[in-house]
């Protein structure tokens, strides 16, 4: 190593006005001449300083990389994850409010108390999630959230107008509800969806960044290892001792640091990768499945609320059902979720899938009745309660999806925690090992240099 420094110094000396005159060294012989000219203690000094510098550099880089990773993991656990959960809450609460308001509207007379309560809770959740989400959003997402914030009071106003007209028994109420739902489905939900997707992408990016291969550190460690081997060969040749205890110790320290870091980083990266694939990605898919099913439920009710002029809502229902389980019942969000989910989660998702298939079948019966002019029985079928009723089927689908979503969210958290704990102590360990390596190098060279005094 230091032998390479010498010619570099010569070359960087710029124009060689005197050196050319005194020693016009031929280029090829420069290295050998420099080494020959240098006496052994000086060479040892240079090698020792080089090794110490390299060790410090590699150690610092490794410590910095580990600290950066820990910070990213910490961010996933304490910021990204919770923000993602808030975005999910907003997205879901809005879709749920839409579906609940439409279902409640179909009831004869005043709406059932539990549906009214659910709607009010959804609005409360959406408002709370909005204020939290606005705090952490970047400019573009803040603009989207502002659309939702601007329209939410307009939306609730329309729903209440619909409700009071419905109570006084004039058909105008249905028209207001349809307008409210159009606002929700065409303006508010798409804005919330983009914000949700962005939060998910951010968490996934953090997870990926924190699990990538540390190229720079690996390179520095490799160079240090090479330098240690070279130094040992040099010392062995000059001192005629096969082993220098200091350098051997330094090498062992380096190997130890390497093994520890490799193990800890691999485990941590694995955990994060599981957190991303079976956590964050699965959360995205399940949230979209939940949104699609809620929107489909809203449109199913609206088709009946529209009383004969609901073709446009039926078209949306079909589109959302296709989004959920595919036209053939074997693709769509739920099939994708099944692929992403680990075996343990699949039971819930399969349940959701079965209920979705049942629902589509029952929806067909509702449509046959309504299209055949039997609106009363169609509404009865759509709003009936009981274990086999359509609303119970939808309820089970929704519950299964929510359950699977909870598990996936928890996984993001847990995997981030265990990724963090895999790195625990590594920073301090690396600092100590770096100090150890430097000390071993110094202790290894000191007696050799002393021999020449």
């Amino acid at each position, binding site marked *: 190593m230091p032998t390479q420094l010498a010619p570099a110094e010569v070359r960087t000396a710029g124009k060689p006005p005197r050196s050319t005159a005194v020693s016009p060294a031929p280029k090829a012989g420069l290295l050998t001449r420099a080494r020959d000219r240098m006496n052994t203690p000086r060479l040892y000094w240079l090698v020792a300083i080089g090794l110490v510098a390299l060790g410090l550099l590699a150690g610092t880089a490794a410590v910095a990389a580990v600290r950066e990773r820990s910070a990213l993991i910490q961010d996933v656990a304490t910021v990204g994850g919770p923000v993602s959960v808030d975005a999910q809450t907003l997205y879901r609460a809005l879709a749920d409010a839409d579906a609940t308001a439409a279902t409640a509207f179909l009831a*004869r*007379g005043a709406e059932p108390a539990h549906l009214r309560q659910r709607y009010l809770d959804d609005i409360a959740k959406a408002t709370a999630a909005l204020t939290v989400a606005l705090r952490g959003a970047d400019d573009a997402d803040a*603009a989207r959230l*502002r659309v939702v914030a*601007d*329209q939410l009071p*307009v*939306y609730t106003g*329309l729903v209440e107008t619909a409700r009071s*007209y*419905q*109570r*006084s*028994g*004039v*058909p*105008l109420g*249905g*028209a*207001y509800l*349809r*307008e*409210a*739902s*159009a*606002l929700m489905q*065409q*303006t508010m939900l798409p804005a919330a969806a983009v914000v949700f997707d962005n939060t998910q992408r951010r968490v996934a990016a953090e997870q990926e960044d924190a699990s990538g291969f540390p190229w720079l550190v690996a390179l520095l460690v490799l160079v240090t290892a090479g330098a240690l081997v070279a130094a040992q060969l040099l010392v062995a040749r000059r001192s005629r001792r096969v082993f220098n205890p200091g350098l051997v110790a330094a090498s062992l320290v380096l190997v130890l640091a390497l093994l520890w870091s490799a193990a800890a980083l691999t485990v941590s990266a694995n955990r994060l990768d599981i957190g991303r694939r079976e956590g964050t990605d699965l959360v995205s898919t399940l949230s979209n499945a939940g949104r699609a099913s809620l929107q489909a439920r809203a449109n199913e009710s609206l088709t009946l609320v*529209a*009383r*004969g*002029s609901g*073709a*446009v*809502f039926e078209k949306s229902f079909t589109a959302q059902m296709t989004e959920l389980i595919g036209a053939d019942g074997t693709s769509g969000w739920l099939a994708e979720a099944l692929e992403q989910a680990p075996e343990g989660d699949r039971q819930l998702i399969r349940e959701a899938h079965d209920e979705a298939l049942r629902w589509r079948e029952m929806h067909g019966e509702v449509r046959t009745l*309504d299209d*055949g*002019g*039997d*609106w*009363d029985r169609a509404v009865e079928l759509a709003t009936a309660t009981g274990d086999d009723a359509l609303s119970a089927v939808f309820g089970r689908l929704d519950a299964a999806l929510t359950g699977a979503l909870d598990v996936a969210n928890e996984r993001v958290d847990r995997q981030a925690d265990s990724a963090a704990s895999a790195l625990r102590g590594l920073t301090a360990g690396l600092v100590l090992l770096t100090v150890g390596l430097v000390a071993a190098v110094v202790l290894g060279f000191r007696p050799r240099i002393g021999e020449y005094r």
Partner: protein
Amino acid sequence: MKTTRVVASLLLITLAAGCGPAGGTDRPVAADATATVPRPVNVADPAEVPSAAAAPNCDPRASFRPEGPLPKAGAMPAGTPMARIAAKGRLVVGIDQNAYLFGFRDPESGELVGFEIDMAREMARAIFGDPNKVQFRAITTADRIPVLQNHQVDMVIRTMTMTCERWQQVAFSTEYIASRQRLLVRRNEGIKDFADLANRKVCATRGSTSIRTIAAQPSKPIPVSTDSTLDCLVLLQQRQVDAVSTIDILLAGLAAQDPTTEVIGAPVSDEPAGIGIPQGEEDMVRFVNGVLEKMRADATWTRIYDKWLRSRLGAADPPAAVYR
């Protein structure tokens, strides 16, 4: 004195420049926020105006004359559409569920009620002797002709205007209620007629003759179309349109839901409403006309009219039948 004024104005200019929008950053200012108005789903603004096919010349009111005495309920002549309906056990009628006073849901019972619902029940009574042997099928304005052509319903009683153009696709009974296209506006805004609506938005349902009539007005209003007349009332209440224009009997149903609106303006069309029947079912048309004759004669028509419409539209006689 003069210098101080110059210095003062310079200072003012500097200050004003300093306070202006800095560097063109367009950070949204809360005080600048404005409301955006929502819209019902599927609004077309401006509306697509249905093209008027070369309408043949005819008397749209002229229907087929009843033949002989009306067959007794439960004893329909064999081979007729009525016999087929009797065998089926119920009369399928395409109706409107959203037309207040004409066909709508009673909020308490959830039952379909209204002027046209009662008309349909009278038809069922004439065929079965039972006014309840009727199955209602809610259809859109645009669906009226297709459901007849595809025989998905036996008849359509849904304020369907008799026109020569439609006579080529379906058959009609004699006129069962007279109507004219007029305007529904917000009270006290100075709009009295189509002449006051130049370049202003006027709403009607998609594919209806009303859209064509609005577009044809000399004052050039802008037609806006929706899926249902109720959506038009929503737009009127939200001030997104300045008037709703369709037949006066439907407008009366809208005005009844919002007392701050009123039906005004000279009639711009004459739109007799007839019961739509699939083309080629002449026996059925003659039978329905016979039933209508009977309802006019025995005051059934007046009883139903008074029950639903008299308080809104004033007293009226049944429209006279016109035959070919």
